């Protein structure tokens, strides 16, 4: 009702505007209108492109090397050797189970630790007053722009000094807390945790750490779940540093999977079987929690 009628638009803004306004009402220009089928077709193409390489990997994983050599374009129906190939990979010399366990340990520990330390720091930055707060927060944000991967040589020397090379702790420790996490929790608690609640707890005589544990941490839960998910995904897919510091004896999944290429470099079906089973856990996670990932990115997630 509040929108001006077409004649009014014609009088005040000219004929072209009236035509455009009319069009906006009759077609899909207004954002509350349903879009046309072209939009759906284009989006469907995008999603097919997103899924196709993964399905292609599965198709190769369920065939054998002779089939792959004869059919550059595999049949869309799986060949049925998937479980044979998977069991070959599981019993092969890449230590799949160990790698899976390592990936789960590293992912879980870093996710929990990042959530805990980031929420702690976020609580401090967003709700506590202390000298140098703003400067320190700017510093935290600035560190996200530091290419720390370029410090690998000294980091490796450091880990050797500690005797940590080849051990999971060498991968876990550098990831215990991230600048992105601190920034993310600061942003969230800024708006989600009312000062009154913190003050009420303080007046009731709660110590700082109790206030954090009973007031800030519960308030941070939605953002903490998202941060945990992002951290887990990043840890699960991380290759460069585990590859350098862990080596082949005590691998995480990506390190083990690249070994497949060295051990069976002619048999694509086995390589792809390894690729598929190492990806399945995260695909499952994605179906369970993908909604949270989407919401997390859209609430201002930063690549980290």
């Amino acid at each position, binding site marked *: 009702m509040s929108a001006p009628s077409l004649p009014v638009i014609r009088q005040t803004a000219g004929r072209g505007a009236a035509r455009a306004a009319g069009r906006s009402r009759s077609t899909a220009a207004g954002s509350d209108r349903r879009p046309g089928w072209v939009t759906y077709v284009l989006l469907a193409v995008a999603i097919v492109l997103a899924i196709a390489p993964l399905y292609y990997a599965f198709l190769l994983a369920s065939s054998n090397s002779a089939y792959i050599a004869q059919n550059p374009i595999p049949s869309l129906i799986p060949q049925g050797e998937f479980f044979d190939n998977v069991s070959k990979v599981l019993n092969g010399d890449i230590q799949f189970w160990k790698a899976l366990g390592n990936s789960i340990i590293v992912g879980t520990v870093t996710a929990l630790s990042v959530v805990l330390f980031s929420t702690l720091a976020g609580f401090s930055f967003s709700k506590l007053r202390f000298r140098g707060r703003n400067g320190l927060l700017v510093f935290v944000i600035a560190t996200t*722009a530091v290419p720390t991967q370029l410090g690998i*040589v000294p980091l*490796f020397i450091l880990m050797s000094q500690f005797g940590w090379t080849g051990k999971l702790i060498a991968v876990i420790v550098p990831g215990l807390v991230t600048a992105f996490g601190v920034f993310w929790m600061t*942003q969230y608690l800024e708006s989600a945790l009312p000062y009154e609640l913190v003050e009420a707890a303080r007046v009731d005589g709660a110590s700082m750490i109790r206030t954090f544990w009973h007031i800030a941490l519960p308030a941070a839960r939605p953002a903490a779940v998202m941060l945990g998910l992002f951290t887990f995904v990043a840890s699960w897919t991380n290759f460069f540093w585990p590859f350098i510091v862990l080596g082949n004896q005590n691998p995480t999944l990506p390190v083990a999977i690249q070994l497949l290429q060295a051990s069976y470099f002619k048999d694509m079906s086995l390589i792809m079987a390894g690729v598929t089973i190492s990806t399945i856990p995260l695909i499952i996670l994605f179906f369970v929690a993908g909604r949270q*990932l989407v919401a997390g990115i859209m609430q201002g997630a930063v690549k980290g």
Partner: protein
Amino acid sequence: MATSTTSPHLDSGRRRDPDRAPRRVGFSQTLGRWDVKVSPYLYISPFFILFALTGLFPLVYTAYVSVHDWNLIGGKGEFVGFENYLFVVQEPNFWKGLRNTFSIFLISTVPQLIIAIVLAALLDANLRARTFWRMGVLLPYVVAPVAVSLIFGKLFADKSGLINTVLGYIGIDPIGWHAQILPSHIAIATMVDFRWTGYNTLILLAAMQAIPKDLYEAAVLDGASRVRQFFSVTVPMLRPTIIFVVITSTIGGLQIFDEPRLFDQTGQGGPSRQWMTATMYIYELGWGNQKSFGRASAVAWILFLIIIVIAMINFAATRKISSETSATKKRKKVSR
């Protein structure tokens, strides 16, 4: 207010009140004050300690290692000044590494941004099953780069690869995706885009939804078509977010390692290092045949300086643009 012997300070403050009469303070109260003063620093300290140890120190120490003869196995040797730097800049592979890194970065970033903006515009419509579409574009994000690289390495196989076979059907000669320089860069850029386009689409979508609707209404009143609205309202309003996406992809993109490393079995970036990136070169110098940490550090330090310079250019550009559009910056949280 325990005493009133002194005139109250102007900026009173219960905090600093040295003349206050000594009052017996209970242990718990002292503890409480200490709690208030120290806790904030205590809570933020894990990040700073960890960053100092695993971020800052290694970067700074890289410079120290780079001026020494330093071996993976033998450890620290003599001080050699700039010898490592002189060695690497005379190596053709060093320059190839830089060339490939920048080439792959540019080839991946530009199309990725364009596709992400278009996809975001499509997702911005009032879709049925909105969450399904959004999740769909994000799916590749959870696939490890190692897995992506193995899959695409096969898709882009020079002989009997799916892509070359399809190209053959439409009458195009097989392309040497591994053998040639530019095609190999395109193949690797495709992997990067496969994984990151959906992610950046969602960032841009969020920014799009933050654009005030009255801007579109004004554009409609001025007679702008939908396409015109997209280029004259949406894209300019997205500029801060686009810059943000570019900056984050610069930092990650110039350190690219996983995808090119696994593009073939040898992991050396091709027989004539067609797709060997700078980070792969660092790895090769430090952990390959030479085992020279000194030389690896020299390359790392050079790359670090290059990234800093680019970051500063980015930063200057961002400041300029954000001051131009300061009234409209919506989501650029980095600069806040």
